[in-house]
């Protein structure tokens, strides 16, 4: 698009002014209050607040469960995207639409359903728990529900790239004597890698902040099944605002690093999507 001289199109100062006003009031002011509160702690106090054994356990669990869920999403999401794009089967369009359900479904509902499905008497728990798979009030329960909430990301980032792949490339590979597996690993997969990574990073970022669904399935066991947002909430309930803020700043820091990484990945994958 071409830049337009400000004098020709109307509404520049009105729309920009209103946008800045709204953003400042709703985003910048609250976030700076957060930073301000965190700086009211001395560095030593800040360190103490974020490095208690309970906090460290919470961060370890948050990062570990989010990573596991995002990896699971990457594998399952790629499978589903591949099948939806490349094969015809009954009810394909319905399944395609259902992929977005985890985005549309309130997280509280996801948590409620997962907590009920995976208890020992639940529809799925009755088969898994006797096998020794602890699917409730355990880190695995958290991984399962995080896999659900982040599932659409990989499917929706991989799908357009998969659709845009030139059939000629595959045909050329076959003519040159490649097997299907060689064609897949050498021709089809490389251009999909950036999209898979983007989807992986998006579901990882989403999982890091997730709260609503997790509190239903996690049980309330500090240092065992407590993720970072739950710890922040617990500190808030104790009116320990400064400690809560210190923990929040660490979580925000991790999210912003991820956001930067996602932006780079998206730029990289756009090269292939076009």
């Amino acid at each position, binding site marked *: 698009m071409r830049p337009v001289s400000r004098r020709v199109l109307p509404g520049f100062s009105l729309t920009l002014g209103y946008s800045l006003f709204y953003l400042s009031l709703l985003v910048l002011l*609250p976030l700076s209050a957060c930073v301000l509160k965190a700086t009211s702690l001395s560095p030593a106090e800040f360190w103490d607040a974020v490095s208690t054994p309970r906090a460290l356990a919470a961060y370890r669990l948050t990062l570990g469960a989010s990573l596991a869920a995002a990896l699971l999403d990457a594998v399952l999401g790629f*499978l589903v995207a591949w099948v939806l794009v490349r094969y015809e089967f009954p009810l394909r369009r319905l399944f395609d639409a259902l992929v977005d359900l985890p985005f549309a479904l309130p*997280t509280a509902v996801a948590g409620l359903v997962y907590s009920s499905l995976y208890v020992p008497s639940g529809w799925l728990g009755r088969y898994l728990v006797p096998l020794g798979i602890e699917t409730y009030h355990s880190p695995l329960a958290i991984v399962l529900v995080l896999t659900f909430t982040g599932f659409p990301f990989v499917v929706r980032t991989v799908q357009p790239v998969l659709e845009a792949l030139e059939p000629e490339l595959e045909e050329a590979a076959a003519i040159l004597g490649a097997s299907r597996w060689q064609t897949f690993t050498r021709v089809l997969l490389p251009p999909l890698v950036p999209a898979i990574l983007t989807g992986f990073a998006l579901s990882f970022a989403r999982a890091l902040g997730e709260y609503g669904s997790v509190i239903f399935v996690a049980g309330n066991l500090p240092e065992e099944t407590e993720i970072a947002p739950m710890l922040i909430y617990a500190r808030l309930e104790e009116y320990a605002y400064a400690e809560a803020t210190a923990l929040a700043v660490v979580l925000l820091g991790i*999210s912003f690093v991820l956001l930067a990484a996602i932006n780079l990945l998206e730029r990289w994958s756009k090269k292939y999507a076009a």
Partner: protein
Amino acid sequence: MQLDAPPAELPPAAVPARPARSAPTERRTRAPTSARQDPAVVRWGLTLAAVAVLGVLVVVPVVHVFWEALADGPAVYWNNLVRDPATRHALALTLTVVPIAVGLNLVFGVAVAWAVARFRFPGRSLLVTLIDLPFSVSPVVAGLVFVLLFGPRQGIFGPWLYAHGIKVLFATPGIILVTCFVTLPFVARELIPVLEADGPEEELAALTLGASGWQMFWRVTLPNIKWGVLYGVLLCTARAAGEFGAVHVVSGRITGKTDTLPLRVEKLLQEYRTPAAFAVASVLTSLALVTLGAKAWLERAEASSLLTPDPSAPRGERSKERKDEAA
């Protein structure tokens, strides 16, 4: 994809361009060559695996919600929803908060998309990054920052507002604020690419023909971005109605006063009223399913409006002209 016959005034020399134009469509409908076809075992194995993944991950939970909600029969289900004053209040609160939050973010989304997509100014890319910021903030942190601002004792503005009898935290204004925060990017993110793709030519033409700024907006800009607006509003509504974490933090969870529908689900579960919790959850699940249906419908409606070669579908016309030129 333009499948219609070339315009009659086209010189005969241009006619052979037609097969070339419809070639991509042919390629898509033709059966995959053996070079692109996976063995049947692989095909069916992967399809079954994908269907199983979607079944366990998505279909089973949806069925389970309605199964549990209706476990004691439709009469109990109906009573759980309607006879409980706290649930009724939660529904009313959600129906108050969502339209306000969506409305505010709609106005913001249109304004910021116009500024960002039509003008160049210093700090423009920083502004775009700021719009996305709420997506990367955990809902609990989003709630926390508003507690830091409006907490009645420790907050920055809280004590002053409290002294003047204005309650923000543990009241409806706080819930609206955090809902606005977490759903802020939806409309703007949809509209910026749509406006950028369209370009300002039609708006400039309207201005040249003497339209005022508002006339240009209502008659030219808005009709062009209407699908983006609808899409953004849809996503924003779904997220606003379902927001849990941020509202959990700022609402104080006062039964019958500051519980929204998702919070009511948690409250009922804590009270060991599982069928009632599932009844409320079934309402939210229905909303999610309606959202998905509306989304699918919007996508199809937009695609068909772009295909119709009439003056109200300028993008289709333009791309056709471009293709004709290329031919």
